[in-house]
């Protein structure tokens, strides 16, 4: 073969490849699923992945949406911001149309800038950090979970109105999530004027001992403790409190409302209050999805499964209504079209928060969370 032929051939192949790439992309609707799939936070990310896979299998079995199959692009961000930006770049460069994720607020924040630049809509099942929607900085961001300030306000009003607390102690784990919750709760209580915040402190996650903080709690005479953080620290605090015979009602965020907390805290969990997404088991779609999950995986679905399932349904509905994956059209569809999901009938408000989802207060009774009416 002559050299010029070789060059021509190569050029032809290149052109063909270049042309075929966008053509291929148009064939499917590409949805990125980003979250922690390995590492210690994987339990928060894997249920979302499972939910997305279930919804997509379902939709594709029925012939896809607008005649196109849905394709998932799974990407692991380990909840680390620097990995999340890489993951986002990767998804964007591979031509993703829509992203389900990310799971952690920090990683979401890091990745959102990239999606925003590429005009890609992102729906998170779990990133509850309020400014994500309320700052207006990320018009491409939506979520199927209520933001932290909602539940913090609920926790605060529950403490002052239902438990009639006069002196409230607030602790947090210094993390983005826990501290955010604690800050909003503090603000709500101070604004409400019904009680005083007598103690507001961060604790070191992973520390061996919190007895100093607990002694302080007693000294300040707090009659309610609001804690912002996750279940390991919550159960450690409770265990120490019970050993020291300090019986102060404990209110935590949805980070402790799960089996993980019940498992670790054991009998210390009894009587603990936690705010959490409203009970969604009454929705028929939810029951169905959970049944399917149990049939498929042989266990109960994990954290954020419902929200992720709902986000997927909302996203696909929007694609259907908009008739394309165009950014503007999708955004409009998400904000206008009501859709039946696992968390109820929802649509999104102007800032990207789902209307119709909210929080309720639960209490541990006989080893299970029960809604406090």
């Amino acid at each position, binding site marked *: 073969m002559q050299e010029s032929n070789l060059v021509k051939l190569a050029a032809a192949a290149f052109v063909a490849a270049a042309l075929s790439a966008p053509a291929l992309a148009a064939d499917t609707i590409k949805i990125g699923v980003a979250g922690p799939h*390995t*590492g210690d936070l994987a339990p928060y990310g894997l249920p979302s992945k499972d939910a997305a896979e279930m919804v997509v299998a379902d939709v594709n079995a029925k012939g896809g949406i607008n005649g196109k199959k849905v394709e998932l692009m799974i990407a*692991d961000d*380990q909840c*680390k*911001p*620097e990995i999340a*930006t*890489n993951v986002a*770049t*990767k998804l*964007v*460069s*591979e*031509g993703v149309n829509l992203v389900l994720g990310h799971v952690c*607020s*920090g990683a979401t*924040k*890091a990745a959102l*800038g*990239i999606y925003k*630049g*590429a005009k890609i809509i992102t729906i998170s099942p779990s990133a509850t*950090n309020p400014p994500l929607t309320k700052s207006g*900085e990320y018009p491409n961001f939506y979520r199927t979970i209520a933001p932290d300030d909602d539940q913090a306000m609920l926790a605060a009003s529950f403490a002052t109105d239902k438990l009639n607390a006069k002196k409230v102690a607030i602790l947090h784990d*210094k*993390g*983005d999530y826990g*501290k*955010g919750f604690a800050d909003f709760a503090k603000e709500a209580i101070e604004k409400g004027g019904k009680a005083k915040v007598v103690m507001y402190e*961060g604790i*070191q996650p992973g520390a061996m001992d919190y007895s100093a903080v607990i002694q302080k709690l007693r000294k300040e005479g707090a009659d309610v403790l609001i804690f912002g953080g996750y279940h390991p620290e919550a159960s450690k605090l409770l265990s120490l409190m019970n050993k020291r015979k300090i019986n102060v009602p404990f209110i935590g965020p949805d980070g402790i409302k799960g*089996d993980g907390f019940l*498992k670790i805290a054991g009998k210390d969990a009894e009587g603990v209050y936690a705010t959490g997404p409203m009970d969604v088991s009454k929705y028929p779609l939810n029951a169905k999805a959970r049944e399917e999950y149990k049939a498929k995986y042989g266990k109960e679905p994990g954290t954020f499964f419902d929200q992720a399932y709902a986000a997927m349904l909302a996203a696909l509905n929007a694609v259907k209504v908009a008739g394309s994956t165009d950014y503007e059209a999708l955004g409009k569809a998400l904000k206008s079209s009501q859709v039946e999901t696992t968390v109820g009938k929802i649509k999104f408000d102007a800032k990207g928060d789902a209307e119709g989802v909210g929080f309720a207060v639960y209490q541990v009774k006989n080893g299970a969370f029960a809604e406090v009416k």
Partner: protein
Amino acid sequence: MSHLKRSLGIGLWFMFLTLPLMVVRVNTVSREVEWRWSNLVWVGICAFAIAWFWQFSIERRAAQRAKVAAEPHPEKDRPSLAQRLADDPVLSRRVLLAAALIALIFPWAVSTTQNFYHVNVMVSALIFVVLGLGLNITVGLAGLLDLGYIAFFAVGAYTYALLAKGFGLGFWMCLPLGGVMGMLFGVVLGFPILRLRGDYLAIVTLGFGSITKIVLENWDTVFGGAAGIAGIPRPDFFGLPLDGREKSIYTYYIVLALVAVTIFVTNRLKNSRVGRAWMALREDEIACVAMGVDMARTKLSAYALGAFWAGLAGVIFAAHNNFINPDSFTFMDSAMVLAMVVLGGMGSILGVIIASLALKLLPEYLRAFAEYRMLVFGAVMVLMMIFRPQGLINNMRRKYEYDTADVESNDGGK
């Protein structure tokens, strides 16, 4: 035969050792005990095989040692690849040129306007190359163990984030500022620990690293707390608008240039009065001082210079990621950078570069093994120390040129 017996014994020992952890798993929710006996068999077989191989390696190593001890000048007999490269200026220049060319073309070759993932990955890796080379000055050359090096990286990153967001300062303005801030911190932290010896230094630097992270986490009015700082501007290119890919490639070139400068500077220093003093300090502090080297100054300069590079790298890190929070600056990150220096070969520039790239790129592309990544990482650190303590590439000392004849005539004339 005795090998076989010992290996068998070791196999059994490890079966005993791993019995509770690898076989039993207690599920506290379903209140069941899971027995995984097959694991035990695997452990036995693997431990047996490894023990066999281990004894063989240790024996070989001992034999090598004996050989080295018997021959007074072993280095002369076995010049390493790196040494041969360094000794051959034509070849080394060619290799260098080729490497530079590849590095320059790389971002255009692997990216399209849509897909520039590889470029971003490489930028992250090169940032760690700079970090590795910076710590190489402190640990590799001057022998000052620093387990909190990542704090200086954080100082650089937050300097840029705060100055850019708060005062609208540009990237190029902040780059040197970040370095200088890192250096200032290096000096401030360096002072109290001048008197401390190696092991004390380890825990105190580790403490400094933790303190830095805690302060960043807690002082949220300034540093944004755990939520971090988002929306940090990317480097500006004479005010021209760049698309995503161009931005990435631009950042790539910036960090590549920084790597080049770091190599140049380290190389110059290594073979200078200052570099020799660092190495002498590392080898023997008392002899070094007795030979007229000012310990405080030498230590501080090594500390400050190492911190300077970390500060620079931090600025680029913040600019590249647009977002920083304290989670990027943990002890594990410090340990990672230290591992780059040690595994690469203390003091060896090429070794540190190779180790940094390997440690950052392999996990990125071997996501499938992510679970085992840290396990392997830990094991490699131990094994490297046992079988190749000098690191991938031995730090070669330069041979100085001296004109024997000339000196002789001087001598004669005296």
